[in-house]
Structures are given as C-alpha cells and as structure tokens.
C-alpha cells in the first residue's frame, strides 16, 4: 500500500509540474505492491489493490515457496530465495492463495473495482 501511495503521489507531482514523464501506476516491478514471503508467511496476509494492479510476490526465505491461487487462476514457478513472481489482477474480487509447497501458508489479494 505504501509503495502504491508513494508512486501515485510521485505521478501526481510530476503531472502537476508539467512533466511529460508519467510514471505508470503499476507495471514496473520495482513500484508494484509487494507481498513478501518471510518466515513461512505472506506479508501482508491480505493485500488490497485496484483492478489492473500487478502484484509482486518476493521470497525472502531460505527455502523455496510457490504461490498458487485457491481457484487455480494463477500459479508461480518455485521461487528460490530472492526470486519474484508478478501477477496482474484484472478482475475485482477476493483471491485467496496458498504456498503449493507448504499449504498451511495462506494469503489473500482483495481486488477493488
């Protein structure tokens, strides 16, 4: 959320300043909202984004993890330490997901219209 807000502010500031450099709200992995995987948990456990947002999942554990939607609508490859997986949530709704290797690890992306 924080990163999203900052990038929006930046974009607004640049527009206000008359710059033609418009930062895309999403798309660049560095700016995208992130779910960090640490200590066998997804942080934040629930992330709220607007439809069309690309979310990046980043594994900061010493063990691989694998992000799988409960409804199978998305599935990452195995993410080794430091690996990331990006998925764009185009439709509104709640998307529950879990770790395909450690299924007790659960998280949710809440996508607003």
């Amino acid at each position, binding site marked *: 959320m924080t990163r999203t807000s900052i990038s929006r502010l930046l974009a607004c500031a640049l527009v206000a300043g008359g710059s033609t450099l418009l930062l895309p709200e999403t798309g660049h992995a560095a700016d995208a909202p992130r779910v960090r995987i640490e*200590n*066998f948990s997804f942080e934040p456990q629930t992330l709220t984004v607007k439809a069309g947002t690309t979310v990046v999942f980043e594994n900061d554990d*010493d063990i*691989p993890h694998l992000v799988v939607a409960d409804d199978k609508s998305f599935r990452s*490859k195995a993410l080794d330490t430091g690996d990331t997986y990006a998925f764009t949530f185009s439709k509104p709704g709640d998307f529950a997901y879990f770790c395909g290797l450690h*299924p*007790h690890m659960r998280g949710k992306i809440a996508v607003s219209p």
Partner: protein
Amino acid sequence: MTQHHDDGEGISRRHALECMIWAGTGVLWTVSGGVPVSLNLLGAAEAAEAQASGFTFLQISDSHIGFDKAANPHAIDTLKEAIGKVKALPAKPAFMIHTGDITHLSKAAQFDNADQIIGGTGLDVHYVPGEHDVIDEGNGRAYIERYGKNAKGAGWYSFDQNGVHFVGLVNVVNLRAGGLGNLGAEQLAWLADDLRAVSASTPIVVFAHIPLWTVYADWGWGTEDSTQALALLKRFGSVTVLNGHIHQIMQKVEGNITFHTARSTAFPQPAPGTAPAPGPMTVPAGQLRSLLGITDVAVRNGGQELAIIDSRLSDA
C-alpha cells in the same frame, strides 16, 4: 523427558522411547509385534549380530542437493560424508531408502549430483519424493522419469525383501490450501489393494516424506488423510513408518505402529514451536554435523523385530 508414564505394556516403554529420542546417537531399540521390548546402546558387535541373524537397510533423507544458504553452504559435502558413513558401516545394508527432498529445487544437475554421490554405495536405492523434488516445470515429471519407472501414480510402489513388505508412499503432490501432506484417494485405493494379499503376520515398513502422523499441524508437519492409510495397517502385527521432512528425530508408538523420522544430511530444522517458522536452522559451525545423520534399520531373523539406529555425522 520428565514425564514417565508406565502404561503397563512393558518396562517403562515411554521412558525407553524418551531416552532414545534424547540420547540421539548410537541407540538401538527393538520392536516385537509392534511393542518395543528392550533398549540397548548399539555397538559394532551388536550391529554385526543383527546382520548375522537378519538384514539391515539404511535410510537417508532430506539431502537437499543445491542448498547453499547459511544453515549449510555445503549440503553436497555433508551428503558425501553421510555416504562415507554408509560405506563404513560394519554391517553392509541390503539396500537404501531415501525419504525425499533429494534435491532442493528439482533441477537436473541437482538430481545428477545426488545420484552420483548416493550411487557411490553400490546399493539399490528406493526413493520417494519430497516436495522439493516435484517443483520442476512439469510438476514432478523430472522425478518420475528418473525414479518412477516401476511406480504408480506420482511415484508410489511396494516391494518385498526377506519376508518384509515395504511400501513407498507419496504425500507431497496435489496439496490443498490450508492442508497438510496428502496421499489422495487414488493412492489410498492402491494401498488397500496392495495390502490385501499380505498376511497379518508379515512385518510392514511404510516410508514417505512428510510424517504420516501429525507432529505439528501449525507447521504443516503431518498428512491430512494418513488416518485412512493407518486404518489399513491396523490388522498387521508389526508396522514401522519411516519419514523425513522435519530434519530431526521424532518417534511415537501407537498400538502396532511405530513411527520414526530421520535426520537430514543437509541442515537442521527447529523443534516444533521453538522458532517463528520451520525453516533451516543456523547453528554454530562446530555443531552442524551433530544435527545431521543417517538411520540404520535392522530386521531380525523371522522379521518381527526391527531395530532403528540413528547416527550423527559427528558427535561433536
């Protein structure tokens, strides 16, 4: 360790089990008809005696070839050391089982390295996959192509050796959100069919990666449909269940069934609930090898008595 419940089924059965857990090394226990009846420190002479009157097999687990993080930057070297211990055993095992997580990331080079090192024993090896062995692009195809030629489904099978019926199960595929390890209906049906022709007096050894009893659900250390598998094993006089996954020794006796998990050859994991998460545990370098090891299982003549002997890579 402090609570000893003598339930009248034998002399301090639980006390014996607890001591075995905490002593950790060079410990032997025997099972007769599913009930532990004695406990001895194992010496070379006893190992040789076990060999003379029956056979032994060797369990290794969780070699995680490819792991190079702080908990053990050289998982390949500690596997080599473990295999060195196997080669040096006074009683040559009849074969080996590997209870999964052969590799860290299911990469071909990692499987190749593991095969080359483990193959150095010259022993037949019966594998079951861990969750780290089925994360290739094909969701387990690489494992099946390499190890599953005579297996069913995701890699389950059985075989007989000297009157003992061995069953290798797979509980690391098709995992369900919020769940634990999973065997699945197809494998359970196969198991029921496989056991149908086996007499109740035949000792059974079941091996799988994730424990087939719930060690610690909060960390996913259990198998959600294992009770259905265990129900199929109730009629047998002696059942031994060997698992890996948790990188430490845990054991339990429940009726006719003895459960045992092996150490990893790669890195230790914390005891249940003693850390925020079950990931690799970094210990002072001098302690690492005392937390890694192998497991030797002796089957006595006639097959009813099994002795499980865990040994560390080093006692330091």
